[in-house]
């Protein structure tokens, strides 16, 4: 097991290297000249040239990449152009809010999604099934920013149950609407996957054996059924985490949530290249970590995976 974890961590390095290369190229080519954005089009060419030299932007692209990687290897993410302080500091400051939102959204997605999926599977081919699957389709197809605004209109503006936006120093009430918004999409996917996985498992002969033992239907479905059906759901949860991070910038913007996503959106707007790079790298790292955890969870759930290694 330990060898497996180590080899998986080893595989992460080439992936992270690729992420830095692609992000570096894209940001430097596509986002344009950060100094021009900062100083405006009519700035004194001499001043522009001086600032550019100061940031090392006058050097060829490969040279700049080499410099960046050199620093990155010793854990230096560089300085933010905008804030004039280390990128790592900025990221560390924003990370907790994003993690909080992502975890809350994941809980929403797993709880709502699996509950809807289980109900739909048990009431297979009935009105309840149809209702659950329609809701899940809505969850999947509704754009995040639109759903966020509708939830604000209904629950914050009209009903006044939750605050409209902001972090509220970590108050629980502030977390509810953003988590619902961000979790809705994944809840839809998880509901559909749970339903089909459970329907497949409930056809298996060992489920009949469990019933023949005289077990309660609840035990048959939740223990014998779900334990076997949970594998594809786990995979989906791993992939979902990536989508939660991608969805975070929109949700964080709608709800003025001080997380990494909003930082990233602002940094792209400001052409704050070191922050863009740093945040992207951090997203990639979280994504890789989450998938490793999912793979290890596989081994916990299924003894056949454990022994195959």
């Amino acid at each position, binding site marked *: 097991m330990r060898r497996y974890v180590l080899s998986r961590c080893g595989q992460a390095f080439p992936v992270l290297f690729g992420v830095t290369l692609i992000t570096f190229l894209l940001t430097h080519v596509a986002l344009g000249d950060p100094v021009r954005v900062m100083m405006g089009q009519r700035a004194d060419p001499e001043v522009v040239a001086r600032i550019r030299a100061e940031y090392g932007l006058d050097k060829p692209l490969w040279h700049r990449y080499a410099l960046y990687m050199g620093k990155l290897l010793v854990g230096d993410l560089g300085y933010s152009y905008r804030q004039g302080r280390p990128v790592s500091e900025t990221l560390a400051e924003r990370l907790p809010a994003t993690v909080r939102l992502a975890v809350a959204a994941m809980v929403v997605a797993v709880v709502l999604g699996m509950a809807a999926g289980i109900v739909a599977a048990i009431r297979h081919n009935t009105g309840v099934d149809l209702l659950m699957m329609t809701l899940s389709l809505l969850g999947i197809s509704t754009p995040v920013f639109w759903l966020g605004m509708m939830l604000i209109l209904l629950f914050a503006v009209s009903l006044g149950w939750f605050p409209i936006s902001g972090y509220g120093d970590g108050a629980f009430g502030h977390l509810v609407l953003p988590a619902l918004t961000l979790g809705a999409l994944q809840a839809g996917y998880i509901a559909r996957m749970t339903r089909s996985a459970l329907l497949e498992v409930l056809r298996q002969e060992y489920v*009949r054996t469990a019933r023949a033992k005289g077990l309660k239907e609840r035990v048959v479905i939740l223990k014998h059924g779900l334990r076997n059906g949970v594998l594809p759901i786990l995979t989906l949860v791993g992939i979902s985490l990536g989508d939660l991070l991608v969805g975070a910038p929109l949700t964080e913007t709608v709800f003025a949530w001080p997380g990494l996503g909003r930082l990233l959106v602002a940094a792209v707007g400001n052409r704050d290249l070191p922050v863009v790079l740093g945040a992207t790298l951090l997203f990639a790292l979280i994504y890789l970590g989450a998938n490793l955890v999912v793979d290890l969870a596989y081994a916990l759930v299924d003894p056949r995976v454990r022994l195959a290694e």
Partner: protein
Amino acid sequence: MRNGSLLTIQDLQTHFFTGEGVVRAVDGVTLSVRPGETLGLVGESGCGKTVTALSILRLIPNPPGRIVGGTICFEGRDLLRLPEEEMRSIRGCAISMIFQEPMTSLNPVFTVGEQVAEGIRHHQKVSRREAWDRAVEVLRRVKIPDPARRAYEYPHQLSGGLRQRVMIAMALALGPRLLIADEPTTALDVTIQAQIVDLLMGLQEEMQMAVILITHDLGVIAETADRVVVMYAGRVVEEASAEQLFETPLHPYTQGLLESLPKLETGKRHRRLTAIPGLIPNLLDLPTGCKFAPRCPKVIGDCWPTEPELREIRPGHWARCILA
């Protein structure tokens, strides 16, 4: 129908409602099992043996299946009228069942010890520890070597024969009065088959339980059964003691089944096996008269218009054939 029986099935009707029409998988089956006896239930695939067995435990998948008529009396109670909760307390306890395929019938993600202990814990409300100890004891009883260690293993770590022993352990853990064994040896190697049959019969004697042995293997029936019920197209076509059935089979279908068995006879080593001509009938489109008529070598004109009744031809020997 007969007194002193443990289980009496009267006119059981189990139908499957499919898109193409109603499949009468079991259509008017009547049979009974006495305490401690072994009843062989024989017939080709699809004749309704398994559906009859699953009907007893009310495990017919619904939809599409439903028990639409008849009674199943077990120890004086009609199982078909029991509330679900009472039925659950009978399943795995007073009546238990073992299935054909031990690989797919065991849950791959739980240890075999847990799968045996689970039923004990559920029915007798004992602690986890005690249920586990008793599970190990049952595994020892079905002659699994080193049961204390094997209990921690998963189904895929065991051989086919050991898996079927686990299935038997699971079924016998609570000392049932009736065991339904649905083709318990079909998926196993021939050498293992004999061991499993011997084990089952030994345990039956020890525990004084009745067994319904479902099989298409007449060899196993000849070795083990006290009485035999032959099914065809969802009906009972013949019922007799094992000796009567093998000595003087009355229904042409039973005769066909016996003739299709390989025999070891000196001097006739190369006798060809006889097969029953034709195919298993389509249950959606059965003939109105005798259901076996289209395949019967002795068919006469009177076989077609109406279906013959199951008649007692000799004491204890029943057949559904006008020629018997």
